[in-house]
């Protein structure tokens, strides 16, 4: 049977016990801004892309070159993999996309936790100078890793969207996965939150030698470039029940 979502590795890449950073678009575009910054600053090379009939029929052009909007990057040693997209994830694609990615992580025999870089939408973000970052793990060992990195845990509540399903699909395959959630604007691109998230991700990936000061200096430029993706993502998020993240579960303890 043909796969609904295909991970296409464009060249023979050698992986060395890789750690995966997932930065698909979500609230505040925290992961996408963080992932793009990492890829650009550390000059990661494109090693593949993701394609699916469930994605919008869109390609992107950079420097006159045709590229897939859902791309996979890696450092030279194959130790760090970054997944990002320049278009919003359509709600119908969330399940097959996260399933395909989790299957691919299993094929790669990833031993370190998959890290989704995301935002935690805050109504009062405007009044928060330095965003706090929280963690969610998909297993006892993943939670232990978060605690070891001294990350505050999201203790109660709903999570929704790609990272929620990423945690679940990885758990089903006994793959450790965590989400790093920085407080962010719900519907505005948030480079400040992305910088806060990167600072935490650096605790997991020691090779991530990037200075977020540059990200903060260029925050306004990034916000201007990210407007259209933010708008697409907000529309998509409404269908992914992102609003439920503000709800209280009935079995709240």
């Amino acid at each position, binding site marked *: 049977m043909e796969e609904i979502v295909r991970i296409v590795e464009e060249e023979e890449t050698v992986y060395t016990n890789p750690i995966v950073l997932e930065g698909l678009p979500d609230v505040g575009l925290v992961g996408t801004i963080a992932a793009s910054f990492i890829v650009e600053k550390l000059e990661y090379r494109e090693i593949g892309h993701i394609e699916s009939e469930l994605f919008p029929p869109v390609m992107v052009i950079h420097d006159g070159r045709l590229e897939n909007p859902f791309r996979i990057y890696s450092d030279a040693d194959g130790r760090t993999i970054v997944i990002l997209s320049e278009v919003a994830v359509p709600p119908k694609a969330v399940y097959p996309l996260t399933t395909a990615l989790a299957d691919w992580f299993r094929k790669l025999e990833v031993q370190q936790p998959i890290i989704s870089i995301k935002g935690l939408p805050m109504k009062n973000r405007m009044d928060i100078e330095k965003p706090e970052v929280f963690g969610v793990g998909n297993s006892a060992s993943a939670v232990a890793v978060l605690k070891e990195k001294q990350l505050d845990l999201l203790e109660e509540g709903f999570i929704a969207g790609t990272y929620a399903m990423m945690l679940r699909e990885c758990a089903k395959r006994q793959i450790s996965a965590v989400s790093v959630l920085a407080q962010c*604007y719900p519907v505005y*691109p948030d480079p400040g939150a992305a910088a806060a998230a990167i600072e935490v991700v650096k605790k997991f990936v020691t090779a991530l030698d990037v200075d977020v000061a540059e990200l903060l200096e260029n925050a306004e430029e990034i916000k*201007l470039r990210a407007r259209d993706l933010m708008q697409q993502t907000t529309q998509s998020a409404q269908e992914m029940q992102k609003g439920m993240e503000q709800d209280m579960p009935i079995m709240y303890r």
Partner: protein
Amino acid sequence: MGLERSLLKATWGYNGNLEPLYEVEDLEDLILVTFDLPRVKKEDVEVHTTRNTLEVTARMSNAVCWERWGVVQKKIAFQSFKKQIRLPEPIEPEQVEATLKNGVLRIALPKIRQKVSIKLV
């Protein structure tokens, strides 16, 4: 609504204006509207309201200039953000309050309230 949108719907115009990202929240006694306005200083923001509309114009400290981009394929510059919103309920224009912090403009528009006490029968 899905990701579909009008074929030529864009968040920018050839008149040098960008449409800002914005959010409207309908609260009990007021309508709260925020706008994301990067590169904008407080003194360069103009807010106009009527009972039913809100209009924001904000000049950027540096124009945004994109070259060889998208359908334009030539240099295009934007100096301002501009957006007019039709409000979901009438408001009191004289009591509107606006603040700009960290590039986000927050406008609180109190709703017109004519309270009438109803006796239980």
